[in-house]
């Protein structure tokens, strides 16, 4: 039986980050991955979706090129090439991670890892080859999988999940997206730009329930102008197939139908603990999720869990940090996961990003809320970019000046949230952001001006 210091089960962001961090600290580490190194994020999540998003962006800019004085004729989108580029990016990055693991000296085993007991993992590899490994510490990083939608018709041909939508044979004429979370909305936006008629069906009163309601309102306005149909308070009851797929949903006590060549089910993700048998190690669970504390420890002191599998935040960047915290905990170093300041980006057009509380959440939490807001159209660089829709919004506590949350919808939102995230992490106040010189002409000026408008008045709008 193999012996090692640390076994990591799962090679996604949580798993590979943990393994690399462990090796940086000199821990002997073995990583078990049943499918593809890089996990959901690199192979079927963050990376491929954003690669498609980038092609969409280039297409969109090409169509507007004349506005900037560039003369060209757009012939269309070569979808095969879009997908091939996406695959190339994925391959390059997963190759990169494999290289990092190798360089770090992590032993990688192909196979499915299952608990035999608190200290022993069995790996079933290709051709059913079995191997048992004993480890001082075990990190569970088995991630998540798409949630099942319990309605009739989900097995019909053309009903797909977020894995399959990445490799469609062509750009569909019509697409129905079930679930208006960020995974559904990102694909809806990409395909909408590429010419697909998209309908989104969301059960809740709003799409993107985690986003600030003002942001969602503007996004919906923009998307509807671009021809997307968004149905909220709408409950899917079944899918059937004629020539096209028919999705029946109930809205305002009426039954309606949305038609598509494909139906994308994007109704969330659940922790992946199938075939892991955590109960054999006596690990406490909450339904499918592995319960962890702020040191990323499970109920068994030598076993840790990081990433989607603990069911907290299903985000790759949270997985990275949890992995780091887990390794520090294993090393006996004081390490605590801090969930107060978690940024979030949604790649629609325009981009959306946020950190901390929404305005509604802040009010509901009993804060005396003071909001500063600044539109991109009042910033020179946004005008120059030709991207004037959107705003930056900062929510502060009137009493202490603390920044409670920040929300951006507009060009380069995913870059700009960096500053506001650091501001929250450092417990900065809007005044300090406003007093800091921001370069002109740049999009960072919206952050400064929004900050200035919380307690003072912005320069370029008042």
């Amino acid at each position: 039986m193999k012996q090692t210091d640390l076994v990591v089960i799962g090679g996604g962001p949580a798993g590979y980050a943990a393994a690399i961090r462990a090796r940086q600290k000199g821990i002997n580490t073995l990583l078990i991955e049943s499918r593809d190194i890089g996990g959901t994020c690199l192979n079927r999540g963050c990376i491929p979706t954003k690669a498609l998003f980038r092609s969409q962006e280039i297409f969109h800019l090409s169509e507007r090129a004349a506005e900037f004085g560039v003369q060209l004729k757009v012939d269309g989108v070569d979808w095969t090439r879009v997908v091939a580029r996406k695959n190339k990016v994925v391959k390059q990055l997963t190759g990169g991670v494999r290289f990092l693991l190798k360089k770090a000296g992590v032993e990688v085993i192909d196979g499915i890892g299952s608990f035999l007991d608190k200290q022993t993992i069995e790996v079933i590899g290709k051709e059913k080859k079995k191997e048992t490994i004993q480890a001082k510490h075990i990190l569970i990083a088995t991630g998540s999988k798409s949630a099942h939608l319990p309605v009739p018709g989900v097995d019909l041909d053309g009903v797909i999940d977020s894995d399959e939508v990445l490799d469609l044979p062509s750009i569909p004429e019509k697409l129905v997206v079930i679930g208006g979370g960020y995974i559904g909305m990102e694909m809806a936006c990409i395909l909408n730009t590429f010419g697909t008629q998209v309908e989104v069906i969301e059960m809740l009163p709003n799409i993107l329930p985690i986003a600030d309601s003002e942001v969602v309102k503007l996004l919906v306005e923009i998307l509807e102008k671009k021809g997307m149909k968004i149905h909220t308070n709408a409950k899917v009851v079944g899918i059937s197939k004629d020539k096209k797929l028919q999705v029946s949903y109930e809205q305002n006590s009426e039954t309606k139908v949305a038609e598509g060549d494909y139906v994308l089910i994007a109704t969330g993700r659940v922790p992946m603990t199938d075939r892991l048998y955590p109960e054999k190690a006596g690990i406490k669970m909450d339904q499918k999720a592995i319960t962890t504390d702020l040191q990323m420890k499970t109920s068994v002191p030598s076993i840790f869990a990081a990433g989607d599998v603990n069911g907290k935040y299903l985000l790759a960047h949270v997985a990275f940090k949890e992995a780091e915290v887990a390794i520090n905990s294993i090393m006996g170093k004081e390490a605590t996961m801090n969930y107060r300041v978690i940024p979030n980006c949604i790649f629609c057009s325009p981009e959306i990003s946020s950190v901390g509380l929404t305005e509604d959440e802040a009010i509901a939490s009993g804060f005396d809320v003071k909001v500063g807001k600044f539109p991109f159209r009042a910033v020179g660089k946004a005008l120059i970019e030709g991207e004037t829709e959107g705003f930056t919004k900062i929510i502060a506590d009137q009493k202490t000046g603390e920044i409670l949350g920040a929300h951006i919808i507009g060009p380069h939102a995913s870059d700009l949230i960096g500053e506001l995230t650091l501001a929250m992490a450092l417990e900065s106040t809007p005044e300090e952001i406003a007093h800091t010189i921001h370069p002109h002409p740049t999009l960072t000026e919206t952050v400064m001006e929004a900050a200035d408008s919380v307690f003072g008045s912005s320069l370029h709008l008042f």
Partner: protein
Amino acid sequence: KERIKASPLARRLADEYGLDLSKIEGTGPGGRIVKEDIENAYQQKKTVTPQKAE
């Protein structure tokens, strides 16, 4: 207990110099303790400490 507002750099320097942040007055924005405050306090401590020596 009131939370002390200090810049990360100030905290780190206070630690290094063995200074108690609660005894230092912040002159940064909103009364935040900044590097300069720590440097000043350290200069003071250096001039005061020798007299205390046995």
